């Protein structure tokens, strides 16, 4: 342990404590009774314990359905988009393809110019995708930002990886899925994580395209629950308990899966460096 290490650990731990505060604050609120919530100003030390806010979110069987919907669109959406994005990124990383630059420019233009909500809405309507689960992930399937990050990663990878496979006669699909992607685990998991988080948290598509409440994803369902708990007119005559506790529990429910999944992805980040540093 050098002086630098001491400094580093101290700095990072202090920083982490500050970033921990908001979510900790929210966690404490989510398990507070009304009384404890209203009498505490900072919510750092839990003064009570109740699961009532969580139960309020789960009191309808609809929430299970909403959860299933969210899981479906997150898994399917991420799987579909990762396939499409990685194929496209692979294509875009090959400079010997004559049409590559043209296609690339087509992609980049859409980063800046889009027709807005109304034409997209009309399109989804015409495609009869309204009020379907597909409308929850198809319209926003790809992100140019992630595509470019992935393409950059492929460009940086040494060609040698592919060459031996090509000499053996493998086609590009085999090369991409059997060789390149397995070696690109860090970027693969990172972009998948980014996409998954996006799909899990998105509620805007639901707002736009869904009329059937049975198809609400969890994020939108929770939004509805919170909304009805804090709307002026409704809050006056409905007894739901402190709205903040319900809101807090909804946030925890939404964030929890991501925190649980992340450690599995972290494993793949550490590999690269650990090998070079154990000889301290």
């Amino acid at each position, binding site marked *: 342990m050098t002086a630098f290490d001491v400094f580093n650990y101290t700095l990072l731990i202090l*920083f982490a404590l*500050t970033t921990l505060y908001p979510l900790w604050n929210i966690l404490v609120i989510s398990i507070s009774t009304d009384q404890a919530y209203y009498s505490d100003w900072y919510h750092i030390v839990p003064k009570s314990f109740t699961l009532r806010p969580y139960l309020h979110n789960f009191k309808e069987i609809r929430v299970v359905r909403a959860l299933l919907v969210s899981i479906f669109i997150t898994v399917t959406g991420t799987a579909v988009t990762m396939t499409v994005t990685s194929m496209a990124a*692979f294509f875009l990383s090959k400079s010997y393809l004559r*049409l590559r630059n043209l296609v690339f420019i087509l992609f980049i233009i859409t980063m800046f110019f889009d027709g807005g909500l109304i034409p997209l809405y009309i399109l989804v309507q015409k495609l009869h995708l309204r009020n379907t689960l597909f409308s929850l992930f198809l319209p926003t399937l790809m992100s140019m930002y992630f595509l470019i990050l992935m393409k950059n990663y492929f460009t940086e990878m040494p060609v040698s990886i592919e060459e031996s496979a090509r000499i053996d006669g493998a086609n590009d699909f085999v090369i991409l899925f059997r060789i390149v992607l397995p070696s690109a685990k860090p970027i693969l998991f990172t972009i998948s994580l980014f996409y998954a988080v996006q799909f899990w948290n998105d509620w805007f598509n639901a707002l736009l395209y869904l009329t059937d409440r049975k198809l609400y994803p969890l994020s939108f369902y929770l939004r509805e629950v919170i909304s009805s708990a804090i709307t002026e007119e409704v809050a006056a005559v409905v007894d739901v308990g402190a709205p903040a506790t319900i809101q807090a529990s909804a946030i925890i429910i939404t964030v929890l899966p991501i925190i649980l999944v992340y*450690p599995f992805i972290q494993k793949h980040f550490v590999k690269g460096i650990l090998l*070079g540093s154990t000889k301290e």
Partner: protein
Amino acid sequence: MPNQLREIRHDPLGKHIRRYRYLYLMILPALAWLIIFRYLPIYGVTMAFQNFSLNKGFFGSPFVGLKHFQWLLSDPGFKRAFINTWLINVGKLALGFTSTIALAILINEMRHILVKRSIQTITYMPHFVSWVIMAGIFNSLFAYETGAVSHLLEVIGLGKFDFLQDNRYFRVFVVVSHVWKEVGWGSIIYLAAIAAINPELYEAAWVDGAGRFRQLLYITLPGIASTMIIVFILNLGSVLNWSFDQVYNLYSPLVYETGDIMQTYIIRNLSHNPNFSRLAAAGFIRSFIGMTLLVVANSLARRWGRASIY
């Protein structure tokens, strides 16, 4: 061998596509999606150049050319908002860029696996708390009279700052609080890039006697250089679009002078009298400038030779 190469280079287009047919097949789904969901609706951009009326639709609304742009560019409120948007967002770009890289490197330097992983996880947590909630938390913490942070600053002798209501501090507060919130999540991409560096390079350097700092300078930084450049250019392209949620939830009439950005300005006026065309024109201005920034930055990057978007 040379003959073969010459053949490949001078393939007519059809033959070229057939030669690389699998690759061209690979781009089809993405291209199909792009055309359907991004290009089919793109006629909507014309809204900025019309007096858009839903009745008449996109093809019947009268064409007014640059009228909305002229209105926006001559409106003092919009001009002030434009400047604020620049100052705040470029500040975020600069501070954010350096902080995310620094954080990734510092986390990477930790040896203790458990602590390292926990710190990684904890630092990205604020990213998931929306600005609506965070604003509430900040209002409590940084309140002038009653906030915990205000008390703390007083106790250590720095004095009192009205961060949220004083035009001198508001912008800085916006920039720093944003970076604090996002630095953890933003460092993930760099951690992934560091993980991709060939570990043998580190071994070789260690054998040659290079210490940690030299390893950082000559292996890590060059190793993630392309990611840094790409991320920076991409961010530059979208820089004018940032900050809406944050500013909307944090600002107040007292700090409109320094804190009002283009989107909050337009929204305020919109909520009373929706003028779709004007909103579209403002968005168009942001997009146009963003695209120009990206193209210029990319050209510079190409000249430098390290990495570029295209």
